[in-house]
């Protein structure tokens, strides 16, 4: 079961730091959402492998939009 990383707030995707296939640790930076001219870093909720990145730089996202899917590692 993959873990969905949801947007905690609406904004613009400012930077994307991961791509499908990457391995991430919990609390690694995944991407940055810009809202009200402020950069908000979105962190990995768990360690695992990135299955899919649903957004790209410049996208507008609403609150609770799915940003990234992560396959949690077993440990």
């Amino acid at each position, binding site marked *: 079961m993959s873990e969905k990383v949801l947007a*905690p707030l609406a904004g613009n995707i400012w930077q994307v730091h991961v791509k499908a296939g990457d391995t991430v640790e919990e609390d690694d930076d995944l991407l940055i959402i810009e809202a*009200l*001219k*402020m950069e908000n870093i979105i*962190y990995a909720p768990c360690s695992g492998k990135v299955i899919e990145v649903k957004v790209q730089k410049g996208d507008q996202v609403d609150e609770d939009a799915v940003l990234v899917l992560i396959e949690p590692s077993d440990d």
Partner: protein
Amino acid sequence: MGFIHNMGLWSVTPGLLGMWLIGLTLIYLAIKKQYEPLLLLPIGFGILLANLPNAELMTEGQGLLWRFYHYGIEWEIIPPLIFLGLGALTDFGPLLSQPRLIFLGAGAQVGVYITFFVAYAMGFTLPEAASIGIIGGSDGPTTIYLASKLAPQLLGVVAVAAYSYMALVPIIQPPIMRLLTTEKERKIRMHKGRKITHNEKLLFPVVATVVIILLVPPSAPLMAMFMLGNLFRESKVVERLSDTAQNALLNIVTIFLGVSVGATMNADTFFRRDVIFIFVLGLLAFMCSTASGIILAKLMNLFTSNKINPLIGAAGVSAVPMSARVAQKMATAADKKNYIIMFAMGPNIAGVIGTLIAAGVFLAMLK
């Protein structure tokens, strides 16, 4: 010889040189430090222009800057137009999804009233004290509007004080926020409010206009334009009007607002002991408003299980969205996954309405 005799050069006084220095300082701060450049740049240049001898730019009935000031501010045209643009820029969603946050916007007006009484006790007249206290709302156009009606002689000073403190939000607020909150409180993650429908967003500006103006009629010019701008935005059928109000028109009137306000400042009104008091009182107002918003949030937490991060109380001062950003920065420093900026926008927007109402109450009492 007449040409040489009429040169302004012979009329330069130490007072005028002092005003040039103040104008140039504001221009420097705007360009080099990016302190509220949209306002402080034209204000600084306005000060410089109004204090050039023999140019008569502020001469009543004929000067160019006097005309800007007279028809723009004394005739109450510019501040309401600014509010039209601000309304078109404002999303009331964060406020509507958690209506309890409106109390924080109201609570942050405490600094306005405290300062009003302190200024009066210090010997300022009631209308002057109100014009100084309103600085605590940290809303530039409202401060200008109120001062122009109650104490025009203080207009330039209170406007510069208000915009200076707004530029200093990221410096003034954090120590107060740290002092009044615990690490645990700063880590509070807030729960999402309910989803807002389009109809609610449409109804809000209409209902708010009627209710607020019925209760506080003198707030009408600013409130009416603020809500009309918001109705443009939310109606989704007048994109052109909404776009013009929040971009072209807002930019145009901002130019005239800044230059006119700057032009009201001259050596006679500026180099007085009172001016130092006004800056100190303005700072007091701003600090009290920040503190009262935080304290009110903490009080509300005593009665609810759905806790409020008290940092967003500081955003009840209506410096939009700077104080919401400051709240987010403080929250992230305590817990890097804590996203409160959108919640902070609730009190932030409520603060704009709160300051408007406070100004309306002053006008009702004192005009």
